[in-house]
């Protein structure tokens, strides 16, 4: 049996049935990491020793019936912006290159309680600022489908690790598309939940009003099970919602009869790669054939989402990142002359260029005299975008479109033109501004063999509607199990 071919739920079932031990599961992913990591570089930290220690402990708990959940014993990777007590948590930044938190993030704690084996921390764009994972202090992650291409970002390490079978699932975070876009580029299933569904306690903040943790998975069923595990009401996060509808696996139903799906014309126009357009429209057709009502409509205000997003996210980031000053933890410059010089040199040396750019933009839009002109105007735009989505959801249950305008670009092609990179977020960021759930589902590949993702957007708290539609699509196409395959790397070695 090739363990790496299993989904997280399939593996969990086999562990429960005593067909596979937790140790064997860890062996499988550690073996795969050793094979693939030199080419892919999904991880900042691989905790081999810790993984085996956890495996032993979890196996005991499974054996005595203490752990019975569907993910017990299944290896997971965590994006490196979520705190784990005593474990390096870097945000892929030099400034946190030696930072070991004193506590564990709530979402990770929820996984621990469910018996997850945490095998390591995944690479990301520095402080989640970027769309390619190239802004990482630790160097870029490569796309497992074609290592000349980026995996997307900022959760590129998490998505590449799942696509390359270096773990069975992963946690990512999404501030403007950071789960959905790399999921699309890597051919995996990624979901950004409604704001407030997963606790942000222990997630190192980028844009606090936009950040959400979510699952990265091999298929829709895994995605639902992971979300069910990490979603919780957390009194330590004032924006955490007390939801009583977190039984997301209940929505794994192969039926979309009567489901109203709207495709925004504004998402299918200029700038969209024709191959992405075709694949997404074909996927919509599949859902239509399964009984959904599909039609086009206008969502005009989304074109203002990019300027509004970069104003709000950068403003919040400039404040959130002030604490990294070299005083209590993290990198501190070697030579300095007095306190303020120490701050200045530490931050100049500790942050990379993209992070500095966003801190400067954010400080500018918040500065006196510009606050009303930029920041407040962006907040008003955000409110208008939310209203426009509210209107759309009066007519539709789901908004369907692409997750990104293109497939994964080649390494080194994006950072030289940040404006172009920002424009690549066009389909995902309005979802964060409106606090909505969004999901990326693989719907095929382009002529170069690079995956294409369809994005499903739901009204607030409608994750189940997204999961149902995605599951129905998956059942109709049976594609999902093949898409995460690490084609380039693994077909050679005939692992898959």
């Amino acid at each position, binding site marked *: 049996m090739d363990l790496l071919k299993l989904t997280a739920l399939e593996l969990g079932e086999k562990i429960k049935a005593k067909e596979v031990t937790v140790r064997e599961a860890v062996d499988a992913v550690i073996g795969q990491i050793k094979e693939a990591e030199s080419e892919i570089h999904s991880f900042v930290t691989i905790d081999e020793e810790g993984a085996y220690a956890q495996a032993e402990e979890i196996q005991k708990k499974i054996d005595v019936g203490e752990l019975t959940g569907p993910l017990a014993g299944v290896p997971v990777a965590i994006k490196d912006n979520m705190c784990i007590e005593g474990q390096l948590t870097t945000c892929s930044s030099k400034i946190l290159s030696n*930072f070991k938190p004193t506590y564990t993030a709530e979402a990770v704690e929820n996984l621990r309680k469910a018996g997850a084996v945490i095998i390591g921390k995944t690479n990301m764009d520095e402080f989640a600022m970027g769309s390619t994972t190239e802004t990482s202090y630790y160097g870029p992650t490569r796309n497992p489908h074609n290592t000349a291409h980026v995996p997307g970002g900022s959760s590129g390490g998490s998505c590449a690790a799942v696509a390359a079978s270096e773990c069975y699932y992963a946690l990512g975070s999404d501030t403007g598309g950071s789960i959905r876009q790399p999921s699309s580029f890597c051919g995996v299933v990624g979901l950004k939940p409604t704001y407030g569904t997963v606790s942000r306690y222990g997630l190192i903040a980028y844009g606090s009003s936009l950040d959400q943790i979510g699952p990265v998975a091999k298929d829709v069923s895994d995605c639902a099970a992971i979300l069910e595990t990490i979603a919780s009401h957390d009194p330590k996060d004032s924006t955490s919602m007390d939801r009583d509808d977190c039984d997301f696996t209940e929505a794994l139903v192969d039926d979309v009869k009567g489901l109203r799906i709207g495709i925004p014309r504004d998402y299918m126009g200029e700038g969209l790669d024709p191959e992405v357009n075709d694949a997404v429209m074909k996927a919509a057709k599949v859902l239509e054939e399964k009984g959904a009502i599909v039609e086009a409509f206008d969502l005009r205000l989304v074109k203002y989402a990019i300027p509004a997003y970069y104003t709000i996210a950068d403003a919040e980031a400039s404040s959130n990142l*002030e604490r990294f*000053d070299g005083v209590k933890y993290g990198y501190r410059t070697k030579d300095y002359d007095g306190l303020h010089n120490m701050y200045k040199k530490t931050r100049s040396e500790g942050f990379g260029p993209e992070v500095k750019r966003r801190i400067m933009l954010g400080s500018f839009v918040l500065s006196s005299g510009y606050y009303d002109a930029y920041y407040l105007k962006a907040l008003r735009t955000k409110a208008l975008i939310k209203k426009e989505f509210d209107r759309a959801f009066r007519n539709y249950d789901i908004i369907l479109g692409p997750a990104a305008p293109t497939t994964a670009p080649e390494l080194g092609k994006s950072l030289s033109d940040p404006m172009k990179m920002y424009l690549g977020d066009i389909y995902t960021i309005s979802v964060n501004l409106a606090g909505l759930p969004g999901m990326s589902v693989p719907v095929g590949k382009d002529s170069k063999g690079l995956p294409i993702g369809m994005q499903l957007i739901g009204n607030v708290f409608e994750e189940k509607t997204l999961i149902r539609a995605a599951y129905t699509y998956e059942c109709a196409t049976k594609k999902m199990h093949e898409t995460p395959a690490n084609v380039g790397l693994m077909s050679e070695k005939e692992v898959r």
Partner: protein
Amino acid sequence: MAKQYETVIGLEVHIELATKTKIFCGCSTEFGGAPNTHTCPVCTGMPGSLPVLNKQVVEYAMAIGLATNCKITQVCKFDRKNYFYPDNPQNYQISQLYLPIARDGYVEIESGSGKKKVRIHEMHMEEDAGKLVHDEWMILHLSIITEAVCHL
């Protein structure tokens, strides 16, 4: 020359509220504990931690607001005051700039020329800047700002 200048004074009064725990976390406000026993990721400003407002602070603030004839703000919010200084581990102070908890009140005092009203401009809740002893950070206080009406 005699009446060219008039001295006008406004006061900013900081009041430490007698709550059991700090303003944004559950740590004790008691003075004199063993080192690092009254701290947590929130009040040490650790990355990823989040503030949760102490309900008692709001109740005390409203009580003082009513006692000083203020209008209580029905929808109020916090703002960050950003500055780099080590009296504060996040390098911003959580305070209230736009919608403070109470506004437009007054207190009456006895003066040489009889009773006098000192008008209160606003009252806002904020975390206290630390005394550069890490344990002390995030004790809360209430800031009462008077109008500049204390003619001397």
